[in-house]
């Protein structure tokens, strides 16, 4: 896997401790206020994040000037910071957020099936915060994540605390991309969570994303098609000061029409997913936290 595919976690233990202090002392307003200079720091010095953000924003706002785009980078970094704070506030129990689940009935129907299902998340909105609420499904959820992201994700969704019975981890770096435990857990009726927007150096296909060619992974779709399980996309958007909407209404049911040209068929489903994400980013342009140039890797 190339270095460029690795994620760069933002913030450190001291930083989070400091934000928690502000949260406890002054609530969300105080923490968000502290976030302003912190975001400024990243806006000025985090070259990698800035370039990735520009790459997204110039496609989201193609008519904007470079100066305007640069200003919007700050807005995007600040928006991500707010959602990080929300996550810390929620998982530490300092502040309770209200969640509106859209398509809960659809999800409940899928959950009641004997077979498992795939939860497809992306760096769109606050997917980790949405995950913390999914213990309501009464299903074990296995996150397929790289070893290097283990610690950050475990911390983000409080995986080591009272929800340890809800979540499990499967490494895609294991034999054959961890396929064996993934298939086993789907057969057991459990849920598997994949990130749908970053290939991390694994199999991916070219798709159209914001009027340009990008590369998205197809592993989740290949597994869903082979095991005949549905894919539930999870989109968690911040809709108010203490409110989030978690949308489960976009369901993809991959089924090969023919045994030939499987990659072409997979590309179509990946394209469907990219279109869903595109619509989400059109509605919430400052909740795209890809911070990774999915278009650039297509050119390399």
């Amino acid at each position, binding site marked *: 896997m190339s270095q460029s595919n690795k994620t760069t976690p933002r913030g450190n233990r001291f930083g989070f401790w400091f934000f928690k202090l502000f949260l406890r002392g002054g609530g969300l307003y105080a923490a968000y206020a502290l976030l302003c200079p912190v975001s400024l720091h990243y806006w000025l010095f985090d070259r990698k994040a800035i370039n990735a953000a520009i790459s997204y924003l110039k496609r989201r706002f193609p008519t904007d000037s470079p100066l305007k785009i640069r200003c919007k980078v700050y807005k995007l970094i600040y928006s991500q910071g707010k959602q990080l704070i929300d996550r810390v506030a929620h998982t530490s129990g300092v502040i309770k957020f209200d969640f509106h689940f859209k398509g809960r009935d659809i999800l409940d129907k899928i959950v009641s099936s004997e077979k498992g299902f795939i939860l497809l998340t992306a760096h769109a909105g606050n997917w980790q915060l949405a995950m913390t609420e999914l213990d309501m499904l009464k299903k074990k959820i296995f996150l397929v994540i790289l070893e290097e992201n283990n610690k950050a994700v475990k911390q983000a969704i409080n995986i080591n605390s009272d929800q340890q019975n809800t979540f499990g981890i499967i490494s895609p770096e294991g034999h*054959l*991309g961890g*396929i*064996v435990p993934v298939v086993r857990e789907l057969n057991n009726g459990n849920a598997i969570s994949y990130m749908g927007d970053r290939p991390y150096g694994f199999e991916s296909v070219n798709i159209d994303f914001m009027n340009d060619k990008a590369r998205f992974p197809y592993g989740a779709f290949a597994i869903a098609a082979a095991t005949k399980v549905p894919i539930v996309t999870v989109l968690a958007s911040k809709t108010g000061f203490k409110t989030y909407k978690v949308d489960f209404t976009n369901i993809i049911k991959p089924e090969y029409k023919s045994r030939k040209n499987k990659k072409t068929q997979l590309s179509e489903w990946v394209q469907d997913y990219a279109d869903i994400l595109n619509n989400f980013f059109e509605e919430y342009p400052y909740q795209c936290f890809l911070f990774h140039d999915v278009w650039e890797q297509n050119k390399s």
Partner: protein
Amino acid sequence: MSEKQTLDEIRTRLKEELIENLSLEDVTPEDITNDEIIFDENGLALDSLDAVEIVVFLQRIWGIEIKDMEQSREILVSIDTMANYILENA
């Protein structure tokens, strides 16, 4: 699985299933050797997309459930390793 199936019969059926399920074009069962490493560039050069199909059809056809990655490393190697496991466990 019929009790009369021999190792040779399992090998042949496995090769046929591989070709059919993975849509291996221009490949016949005779082209696949029993000890060929299926995921190796010098073997059948299958990838993880194919691995999903293999795991699923092993279960569907022979009722073989591979429990963990340690077991998959031993079983999903060649026609021989898969056939031997089927013979002993199916």
